[in-house]
C-alpha cells in the first residue's frame, strides 16, 4: 500500500483540475465552431475533370435508335407535322411582312463599314408581338448571297455588330433577326424597359409577355408560341424571294440564335447552308451534364415540339437536300453550354443518315480556340470557307 500525504493528494487533484480546465478552454476556444457545426454535404458543382472525355451516361444511348428519319419522304412527313404544330397548316406561310421601310436610318449603325443601306422589316403576330428584322446591304462588290443572322438571349442583334460587319466586308448581305420579346422585339411599357406585351389569360389574369416561359401560358390547342420564333423568318424570306434574286441563302446564329437556326433550317429548304453555333445537343447529352441546365427557356424544353422531332431529326432535316449542308459549331470549352466531346456520340450517325438520304451533309466543328460562348474568328473562317464552296 502506497502512502500518500494529504498535501500530495491535493497537489494531484489540483493538477487534474488544471488539466481539465486547460482541456475545456482549449476546446472551447479552438474547436467550438467545429463541434457545433453540421457537416454540409458537398454539393456536386460539376467539376468535370476533362472536357476532352465523355461523361459516362452519354454512352448509354444509341443515337441511331432515336432517329426516326430513314427516307426523304420521312422528312416531308416530319416537316408537315412540325408545320401543323406551328402554323396549324401543312405548309410554310405564304404571307408577306407587315411593313418594309426602305433605307431605314438607325444611327447605331451609322459608322458600320461596308454598309450600303438597311431595310427594316416588321412582322406583326398574335398577342401584339412583333418582330423587327434588318436587311443589311453590303457596299462591297456583292456576291449575291444572303446570310441570315439570328440573335440570342442578349437581345438586340447589335451585339453581333462585328460579325455582321465581317459578312458585309466579304460582300454578303445580312438579314438579322432578334429572338422573340428581346432586343427590338420588345415593347417596353414599364419603368424598367424589360416589359413586353400584356395579355389577359382567363385562367391566370393579366400576364406580361416578357419571359419566354410565359409562352407556356398562352399556348393552347389552336396556337403555339414556337411560331413567334420562326414565323418572322418565313415571311421575311417570302419578301426577299419576291424582291431579290440571291443565289443562295445561309443561316447562322449562336446560343438561342443557333437554336432558331436548327429549327428553321429543318422547316425551310430554302436555307441551303446553315451554321448553328453553341446552341443545341440531344437531351441524352445535356440532361446528364451537371454543368448544364436544360435551359431556362420555353423553346429549349417544349415537350410538344420535341415529341414531333428531337434534335437528331432536326439536324438531319436541316442538312438534307440538294446543295444543302449543316456545320454545327460547338465550343469545346464553352462556359455556357454544349461543351465537351458529346457530339462524337452522334456526329457520324447523323452524317451517315444524311448521306443515305441522297443529298446534303452534316458535320460538327469543335472549336478549341477559345473559352467563351460565341462564334469565334476561327469559326467565322470555317463558315466563310464553307459558304464559298459550291
Amino acid at each position, binding site marked *: 500500500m502506497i502512502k500518500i500525504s494529504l498535501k500530495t493528494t491535493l497537489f494531484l487533484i489540483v493538477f487534474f483540475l488544471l*488539466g481539465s480546465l486547460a*482541456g475545456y478552454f482549449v476546446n472551447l476556444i479552438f474547436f467550438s465552431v467545429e463541434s457545433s457545426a453540421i*457537416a454540409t454535404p458537398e454539393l456536386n458543382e460539376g467539376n468535370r475533370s476533362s472536357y476532352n472525355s465523355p461523361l459516362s*451516361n452519354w454512352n448509354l444511348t444509341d443515337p441511331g435508335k*432515336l432517329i426516326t428519319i430513314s427516307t426523304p419522304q420521312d422528312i416531308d412527313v416530319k416537316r408537315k407535322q412540325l408545320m401543323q404544330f406551328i402554323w396549324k397548316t401543312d405548309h410554310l406561310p405564304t404571307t408577306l411582312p407587315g411593313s418594309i421601310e426602305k433605307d431605314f436610318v438607325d444611327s447605331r449603325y451609322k459608322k458600320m463599314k461596308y454598309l450600303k443601306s438597311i431595310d427594316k422589316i416588321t412582322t406583326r403576330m398574335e398577342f401584339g408581338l412583333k418582330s423587327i428584322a434588318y436587311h443589311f446591304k453590303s457596299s462591297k462588290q456583292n456576291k449575291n448571297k444572303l446570310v441570315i443572322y439570328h440573335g440570342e438571349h442578349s437581345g438586340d442583334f447589335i451585339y453581333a455588330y462585328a460579325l455582321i460587319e465581317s459578312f458585309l466586308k466579304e460582300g454578303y448581305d445580312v438579314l438579322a433577326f432578334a429572338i422573340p420579346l428581346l432586343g427590338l422585339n420588345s415593347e417596353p411599357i414599364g419603368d424598367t424597359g424589360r416589359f413586353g406585351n400584356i395579355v389577359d389569360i382567363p385562367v391566370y389574369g393579366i400576364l406580361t409577355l416578357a*419571359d419566354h416561359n*410565359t409562352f*407556356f401560358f398562352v399556348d393552347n390547342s389552336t396556337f403555339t408560341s414556337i411560331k413567334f420564333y420562326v414565323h418572322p423568318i418565313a415571311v421575311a424570306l417570302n419578301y426577299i424571294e419576291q424582291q431579290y434574286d440571291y443565289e443562295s441563302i445561309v443561316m447562322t446564329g449562336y446560343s438561342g440564335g443557333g437554336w432558331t437556326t436548327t429549327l428553321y433550317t429543318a422547316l425551310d429548304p430554302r436555307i441551303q447552308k446553315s451554321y448553328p453555333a453553341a446552341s443545341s445537343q440531344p437531351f441524352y447529352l445535356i*440532361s446528364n451534364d451537371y454543368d448544364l441546365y436544360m435551359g431556362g427557356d420555353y423553346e429549349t424544353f417544349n415537350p410538344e415540339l420535341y415529341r414531333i422531332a428531337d434534335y437528331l431529326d432536326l439536324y438531319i432535316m436541316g442538312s438534307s437536300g440538294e446543295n444543302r449542308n449543316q456545320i454545327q459549331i460547338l465550343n469545346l470549352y464553352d462556359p455556357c453550354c454544349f461543351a465537351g466531346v458529346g457530339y462524337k456520340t452522334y456526329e457520324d450517325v447523323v452524317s451517315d443518315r444524311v448521306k443515305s438520304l441522297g443529298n446534303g451533309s452534316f458535320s460538327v466543328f469543335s472549336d478549341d480556340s477559345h473559352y467563351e460562348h460565341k462564334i469565334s474568328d476561327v469559326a467565322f473562317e470555317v463558315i466563310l470557307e464553307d459558304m464559298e464552296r459550291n
Partner: protein
Amino acid sequence: MNAKFVLICFVIFIIGFPLGAQFAKSSVTSSLDDLKPYGLPTNPVKSPVPVVKEEWFLTNVSQIIKINSPEDIEKKRAELIQYIWKGDFPKGKPPLIRKNVELGQYKEFVGVKSLDIYEFNWKSLKSQVYHFKTRAKSPKPYLIIIHIGNKPLSQSFHLFFTFFSLRAGFDVLVIPSPLSSIEDQNLTYSSVPAINTPSFGYLGLTDQNVFFLLEDNTFSPLQLYLDPLALSLNLIDQQYNYTSYHLVGSFDGAWEATVYPALDPRIKTSHAIYPPLPFFIATNSDSTSLRNYEYFHPEFTKLANYLELYVMASYGKGRKHMHLIDRWNPHRYNEDGYKAYADEVARRVKTLDEGDFETRVFDNKQQKESSVLVLEQIYSDIEGKEINVGW
C-alpha cells in the same frame, strides 16, 4: 519536489485534459448556441427597396378564383388528383422503412432522440424522408412537416427550424423535392440517375425541367413531388397518434406547402415562406421566378391557378394556410405583390365558412430576427395560442 512527483503531476494533468475537453464539447452542443438563429433562406447582402408594380393590380382577382363553394373545392381537388396520379389519391406506404437509423451528423443535437428514414425509389431516382423524434420529456402531440424543396437539409434555415422544433418538443418529418436528394447523395457524373426513354434516350435527372420530357397521358412527374409526403402520412396515420399535421415549406418547398394541403385535408396548418406567386405577379416582375417545372407547369396550373390553390389549402374546419413574406428579400422584387390578392383570397375563404387564409409580412431588415418571428408564428398557429420561443 522531486522529478518523479513532477512527472506524476504532469500525467495527472494530461489525464484531466481530455476530460475537460469532452466536457467543453458536450456543454457547447447542449447549449442553445449550437442552433444559431439562422436567417431565412436568403442572402441579405443587398436590400433593394420593394417595388410595387401597377401591372399587379390589373387583374380582377375575384374573377379568376373559380371557387365559390365547398363543392367547387371537391371538384377541383378531384381533377388535380386525377391529373397527378391518373387515378385516386395514393393509399400506399413507403416501400422501404428503416427504423432507428444511426443519427450520424445529427446526433450532435440534443433535441433529437431517434430517426426513421422512409425510402422511395422511382426507377433510378431515390428519395428519402426523415422522421425525427423529439427527445423532449413531454413531447407535443403534433407532427411538423418541413418541406426543404431543392436544398439539402443542411441548408441553414431548414436545419435551424428542424432542430429547434425537436428541442421544443415536436416530432419533425423532413421531406425533400425529388432532385434535392441527388445533392444529398453527392452524386458525381458517373452516378447521375438516368431514365431510359424511347424518344430521347437515357435522360439524366439533374434538372427539374427534364420532367417535362417524361410527362405523358399515363404519368405525371408531379407525382414524384407529392408521393413521399402522401405515403409517409399514410404510414404515420397507422403507426402514430399525432393529433394533427402541420406543413411548412420555404422557397421551392413552399410550392409543396401550398399544393399538398390543397390536395390533402389531413394537413391542418400550412405555412408557405416565400409562397409560389400567381403568374400575374411573377410575369410582371423584374426578376421572374418562372424557372422550375413544378411551379409553372401549364397543364396543372390551368386546372387550378395559385389563388385557387391558396383557397383550397386554407379550407376546412380548423385549417389555416399562411403566407410568410420577407419584404426585404433581395432576391425577390415582387414581395409586395401579395397586396394584389391577399385580401380577396382571405375573403373568399371566409365565405366558405371553414378555414383561414392569412398573410404576414416581415418588414424587418434583420434576417435572423425574421427567422425567429417565423418560428413563433408557426408554433402559435399550431398550438392555437401565442408562443414566444424566448430567443
